[in-house]
């Protein structure tokens, strides 16, 4: 069953054609890694899926609802599709526990006791249960990002979007975050779309690797073909050789 479907999607910022003829289907439970040079449109693409960016043409169906349709309730989509940002975006005025409990309480009307139990379970899952009473600013970047993941998971979403989740982190923090993400990826029910240059992560848990440049999808391969064979696209090959040697 498909979770996310792009059909001839176009996106413009004024005259700038940010997304070009995007056609893409992601099945439920798949883990897809999206790579490409900066400015290639990968962040824009991922942000259209939960409606943070609107598309101008084509159809974008997420969890059975068309986002191009003005009547579609974005908040209903966002209940089912979580997002993790490069800069974490934890609520600066709330404790860690409140960060996780707020949306389930307000949006899902989850009873308080159950809400707290789920929040603590999620904190446990990312290995930070002891940080519950702290404020976000007291945590390291890697810890904040794991909290952000726990916050998304607490909504019990069907899909999770990761927008360069490790690129603002110190190198020694990256593994902690990636390990949490790998753990989620191995859970076969979660659909994951990850914008990242962490090729180790892609090799280990991705089903597919997509390469984008200039707002177009140039390569959409299984992990095996992408890493062990050769991408058929010349730019994808060049890009891959650069990030792998680094």
């Amino acid at each position: 069953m498909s979770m996310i479907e792009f059909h001839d999607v176009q996106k413009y910022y004024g005259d700038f054609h940010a997304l070009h003829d995007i056609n893409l289907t992601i099945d439920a439970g798949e883990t897809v890694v999206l790579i490409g040079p900066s400015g290639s449109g990968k962040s824009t693409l991922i942000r259209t899926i939960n409606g943070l960016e609107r598309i101008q043409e084509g159809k974008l169906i997420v969890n059975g609802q068309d986002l191009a349709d003005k009547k579609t309730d974005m908040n209903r989509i966002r209940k089912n599709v979580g997002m993790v940002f490069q800069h974490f975006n934890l609520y600066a005025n709330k404790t860690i526990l409140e960060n996780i409990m707020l949306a389930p309480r307000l949006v899902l009307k989850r009873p308080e006791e159950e809400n707290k139990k789920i929040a603590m379970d999620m904190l446990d899952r990312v290995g930070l249960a002891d940080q519950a009473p702290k404020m976000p600013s007291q945590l390291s970047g890697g810890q904040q990002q794991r909290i952000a993941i726990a916050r998304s998971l607490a909504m019990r979403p069907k899909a999770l979007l990761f927008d360069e989740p490790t690129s603002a982190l110190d190198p020694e923090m990256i593994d902690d975050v990636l390990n949490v993400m790998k753990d989620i990826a191995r859970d076969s029910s979660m659909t994951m779309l990850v914008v990242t240059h962490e090729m180790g992560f892609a090799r280990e848990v991705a089903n597919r690797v997509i390469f984008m440049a200039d707002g177009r999808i140039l390569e959409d391969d299984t992990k095996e073909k992408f890493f062990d064979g050769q991408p058929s696209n010349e730019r994808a090959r060049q890009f891959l050789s650069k990030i792998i040697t680094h």
Partner: protein
Amino acid sequence: MIAIFHNYGSLLLQGFGQTLLCSVIALIFSLIIGSMFAIFETTPIKFLRVIARIYIEVFRNIPLLVITMFFFVVIPMFIAKINGFTAGTIGLTIYTSAFIAETVRSGINSVDPGQMEGARANGLSWWQAMRHIVLPQAFRYVIPPLGNQFINLVKNSSVLAFVAGFDLMYQGNVIASDSLNTMSTYICIGILYLIITLPLSYWMRYLEKKLA
């Protein structure tokens, strides 16, 4: 000076009370109205943004005395008779709310946009994100400028003197012309204003330190 306090104590007290009452009412309502228009200015809804822009630009750029006189003179002509105190308090509320709207708006804009984005992506509606995440952070930023607005408000309440609002300034004028001791009178009046504004100023400083 002691003589002024001694001879005109009840008038001064009455004026002090009126000034304090007017200031408290205007402070509460200008904060509510000002915050409302600040929120209007930052909504995705264009109509509300336009309304807020017009309100703020009109009332911020007309002298307080003109707004007050308008309510004192024009409203009784068409709607209902209101006294000087009411007209002055309404004028002061509206005038101050325009400045507070600008102050709060700048606070909202200084909150990292990632906060709103994170909340929306987390499933919160625009208003939920505003109420629980953005506004609490915005108010922390704007406590110092908001304190200035409150102090200005107390001082600007002297506009009541022009519309027979029986406030501190009005009573000062009465006492000055009765006692003919103008210097002592206005020193007394000044001291009484300080009694309201200085604690306000220190309280704001305390809040600023506590929340920073």
